[in-house]
C-alpha cells in the first residue's frame, strides 16, 4: 500500500485516496472549436509511461481535495505531491 503525502493533511495510506489518471491532460476551453483528434486526445488517448508520471489522486476519505502526485510507475517511488492549483516544479 502506497504512502502518499497529501499537501493538506500529511502522510496518509493509499486506501484513503482514489486514483484520477494522468494529471497533465488539459481540458479544452469551453466554447472553443476543437478537432476530433484534439477531443479524442483529451477524452481517450493516454500514454502509459514506465517511470515518472504526474497523476491525479483525490483524498477521498480525508480532505476531499484533488492533488497531483509525481510517481514512478515502475518502482512506486513518490517524488513530490502538489496541491491542485500549485505550479509544477
Amino acid at each position, binding site marked *: *500500500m502506497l504512502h502518499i503525502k497529501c499537501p493538506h493533511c500529511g502522510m496518509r*495510506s493509499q486506501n484513503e485516496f482514489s486514483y484520477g489518471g494522468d494529471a497533465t491532460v488539459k481540458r479544452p476551453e*469551453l*466554447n472553443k472549436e476543437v478537432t476530433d483528434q484534439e477531443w479524442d486526445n483529451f477524452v*481517450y488517448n493516454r500514454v502509459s509511461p514506465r517511470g515518472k508520471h504526474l497523476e491525479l489522486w483525490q483524498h477521498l476519505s480525508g480532505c476531499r481535495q*484533488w492533488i497531483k502526485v509525481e510517481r514512478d510507475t515502475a*518502482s512506486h517511488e513518490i517524488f513530490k505531491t502538489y496541491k*491542485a*492549483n500549485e505550479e509544477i516544479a
Partner: protein
Amino acid sequence: MAQSYRIETGGLINRNKKISFKFNGVTYFGYDGDTLASALLANGVHLVGRSFKYHRPRGFFGAGVDEPYAVVQLYRNGETEPNIKATEQELFEGLEASSVNCWPSVNFDIGAINNFLKIFLPAGFYYKTFMWPKSFWYKIYEPFIRKAAGLGVASTKHDKERYEHKYEYCDLLIAGSGPSGLASAYSAAKNGAKVILAEDKPRYGGSLLTSDVNIGNQSGKDWADGIISELKEMPNVTVKNRSQVFGYYDHNMLVMSEKVSDHLPETKKYHPNKRLWYIRAKEVLISSGSIERPIVFGNNDTPGVMLSSAAKEYLKVYGVLVGKKPLVFTNNDSGYETAIEFKKHGVDPIVLDSRSNPQSEIIDEAKNLGINIKNSYVVVAAQGYKKVKSADVATISEDKKTLGKIENINCDCICVSGFWTPTIHLASQSGNKTKFNEEIDAFVPGVSKQNETTLGAANGVFTLEETLKTSFEKGKELSKKITEKDNEVSIPNVVEKKYSKHDKFWCVPLPKGKSYKRFLDFQNDVAVSDVEIALREGYRSIEHVKRYTTLGMATDQGKTSNLNGLQLVSEIENKVVPSVGHTTFRPPYTPISIGAIVGREVGKHSKPTRKSPIHNWHEEHNAVFVDAGVWLRPRYYKRGNETLIEASKREAKNVRTNVGVCDVTTLGKIDVKGPDAAEFLNRVYTNAWLKLPVGKARYGVMLREDGIVMDDGTTTRISENHYHMTTTTAQAANVLSHLEYYLQLVWPELNVNVVSTTEQWAGAAIAGPKSRELLQKLFPKTDVSKEGLPFMGYVEGDLFGVKARIFRISFSGELAYEVNVESDNGRFMWEKIIELGEEFKIQPYGTEALSTLRIEMGHVAGSELDGRTIPYDNALEGLLSKKKDFIGKRSLQRAAFVAEDRQRIVGVVPLDKKTSIPEGSHLVKDANAPLPNKKLGHISASCWSVEHDNPFSLAILKDGKNMIGEKLFVMSPLKNKVIPVEIVSSHYVDPKGERVRS
C-alpha cells in the same frame, strides 16, 4: 501411553502441567510448552502424513516454520482449520489433529500406489498424463486427484472466531528476536526510537535457545531473557511473540499475523483469534535468521530423516529425543553440535562427515566425548518405509563423484546438515537485489530498495560476535537518524566456538543400478529426476523449471529446497548458481489464515449499512427491505400473506387512485453555494440554468466527458446563491467527486462550494391525486394550491413546529410533492403524514411500487442510465442546450452517437398481455433465426402496469424511433423464454404529462 522419547529433565517445557491430546484418534500426553510435533515425537510418533504427489509416508523434517510436510488438520473448540504446521502448533488440553493427504488412512494410503507407478507422476504430470483422453478428465482423473491430493479440508461452517486488523506506525520494525533482533532492538530502544520487535515463535531468543554460547558471562538464553524483560518495560517498545511478519509491501508497509489464541483451548472472551498488523515502519531490520539446508540422498524423505538443527531443538527446547540410535550426516560443524547434545543425554550418535579431515574446536570436543566420527562418509540412502530402520552409507571420493563400498548402519533417525541458508524472503519481497555469496553457497541481501537492513544469519553472518556487534551498531545508527539521540550501549563479551569451513557438497550420487528417489522439494514432492526431466524437455529459465516441476512453490516457498534446486540446475546446465538466479519469493512467507486477512469485514460488516431515520417505522410496519447501494430501503410493506407482486401492485395502484408516501431519504443531496453557482450548474448540466428563479426546481441531466449520461436529478434554487442538488442514490458519491474535480482542477476561478447534505435531510415523496389535499392538512399555514405551489415550485413550510422544505416534483408521474425535514425530525414527519393521510387512504409504498410507477410513465432511472447510453437513447435530447457548452457536449458529435438508426428507449408489451418479460432479455426480429441471432436491443426494466393491468417493459432498442408498432421477440435463454411482443411508446401512462401539472 508413556512419553518414551522424553528425557528425564531439561528443556523449556513445563513438566508440572501434563496435557492430553489426540492425533488420528489416538490419545497421547505431552507437556505445557510442547508443540504438537514435539509431543508426538516424545511419544515416538514419526509418521504424520503422506506426500503430495507420490503419497509416500512423511514425518517431521524441521521444528518450526521451515517444516515442509508435517501439515495437519486441526480441530479446536468445534472449529477445524487445515494447513497447520504441527511444528508450530502449540499443544493445549484437548487438542485434536489428523493427518491430511492420506486416504483412507495414514497407515494404508491408496495413493501410495503412485509411488510404484513411476511413469504416472513425473515432472509436468498434470500437463501430460491427464490431457487425454479428454473424456476421462471429469469422471476419472479429476475426482481421483481431488480425493488424493488435498492439503486438508476447509470448514464449511460459519467461523465463529473473530479476527482483527490493526494499523501501526513505528520507527523500527524488527523481524525476528534472535541475537541480531535483540541487539538492534535494544540499542534502538535506548535511543528512544519507537520499536516493534516481532517473533514468530512463542519463545524469544531464536538460535540463542539452542546454541552453546556465553554472552556477558551468561548463557545465551539467559542473556536473551534479560534483554526481553528490559525491552518489555520500555514504553517505546512493543514486543510481540507468536507474530510472523510475512509480507513486505510498498513504501515500507509490512504485514504481520499475530496468533492471539491458537495456543489456547478456546479464545478468551473479547479476544480475537488472530490479529493482522499493518505496520508502516520508517526502518525495517530483518533478523529472520537462517534455515538449515538438507543434503540430498536416496529416500531422504523417509520419516526419521530430519534437519540436524531440528533434532537439536527438540532436545534442548522440548527435552525430546528424535531417535535413540541417531546418525548425523553433515558437511559442516553444525552437525557436531547436535551429536554432542545427543551424547550429553546418554545417546551414542554416529557422525558421517563428507569432509576428509575437518579440524575445529567443536570437532575436538566431539572426539573428546568419544563420539564415533567417520570422515569422507555419506548417507547413500535411508532404508525403512514408514520409519528409518537403517542407512546405506559409503565413503566418497575427494571429487565427490565416486562412492566406495556400500555398508549398512543401523539407526532410527538421520540428522542432516548441509550448512545454512539465510532467510532472505522479506528482503527479496521488498525489492532487494540479492547477491550470491560464494563463501556460504547462498543468496544474501544486496542493494536495498526500501529502508530495509538485514542483520546476522539472515545476512550470511554466522558468528555470534560479529552478529551482536553489527546489530548493536545498526540499531543505534538507524535510531539516531530518527530520534537524534546517541546513547552508548556497551557490547557484551561473547564466548563461542570457532567453526571450520563447510564442504560445498549437497547431493549424494546414485550408486550404480539404483534409482532411489532423491527429494529436493519435500512439500511439492519434487525429486532430482523431475528437474532433470524438465531440463531435458527444454525448460531453461529457473522460473519455468519452477512451474513445470512445482519446485519451490506453494506454502513452502522453497524454504528448504530453493538452493539445492538451483545447485542442480546450475550443475546440469554447467552454469554458476548466480547466473541461474533464484525465483521470486512471494508473500506470504508462511500460510496465513483467510480469516485473518479478511478481518472483521464479514457478513453484515463487509460494507457499511445505511438506514434512513425512518427505518424503525418501516420495520414496525412489516417492510421487506432491499439493498440499494449501501442503503436498506423498504421494497414493499407486506400485508398478511401478500407476495411481492401483490403488495407492490396494491401500493402502486393506491398512488394512482389515492395517495402514497415513499421514503426518499436515500437520494443523494448536494448543496451548491456561491456567486458562481448558476454558471457552474450551467456547465455541469446539459440544459440552461442561468435563468432559474429562486423558489424553482429544474430537472437536469449531467454527462461524462465522453457523452455518456452520468446522472440525473432535480436541482432547486433555495436562495440567490444557494442550490439544492439531488442525485440518484447510487451515483451520489461519484457526482460529488465529479463536481469537486471540475471546481478544484478545471475551473478553479469559479467561486463555488459543494458539500454533501444527504444525511442532513429526511425525505418523503407524497404522490397521488389526493396529495395536494393531504399537503394542505400538513401545512395549513402555507399556500400549496395549484397557483401557490405550481409544478416544479418550491416553498418552505412549517410542519407543526418543524421547519420543512416542500418541492413540487414527481417521479411517479402523478401530482406529487417531496417534503424534506432535518433528519432528526424524519420520523415525526413520516408519522404526521401517515396520521393525516388516513382520511385519504394513504399507504406507504416501497421501491418495487416506485419502480412500477416510473416504468409505466417512461421515466428513466439507473437501469437505463447504465453508463452506456447518451441523452438521445433516453429520449432526453430535448434537454441538450444548443446555445451553451457543457461537460461532454463535444462527444455527442461522434458518428455513432448521431447515427440515423441510433438506439432509443421504447416500451414493450407482450402480445398475450400476460407473460412477464424478464429484465435483461434480448430483443430479436426472428426467434428462429440461426445463431448468433442478431440482437436489436435489451429489456432494461419490467413491471406489471397497474394502469393497464398487463406487463410492461422499457427497452433500449436499435432505431427505436422507427420501431413503434413493430412486432418483435423477447428472448431470455437464461429463463428459456421466447415472448412475442409489440413495441410501443415508452410513455405508457399519461403521455402528455397532464397529471404532474394538475
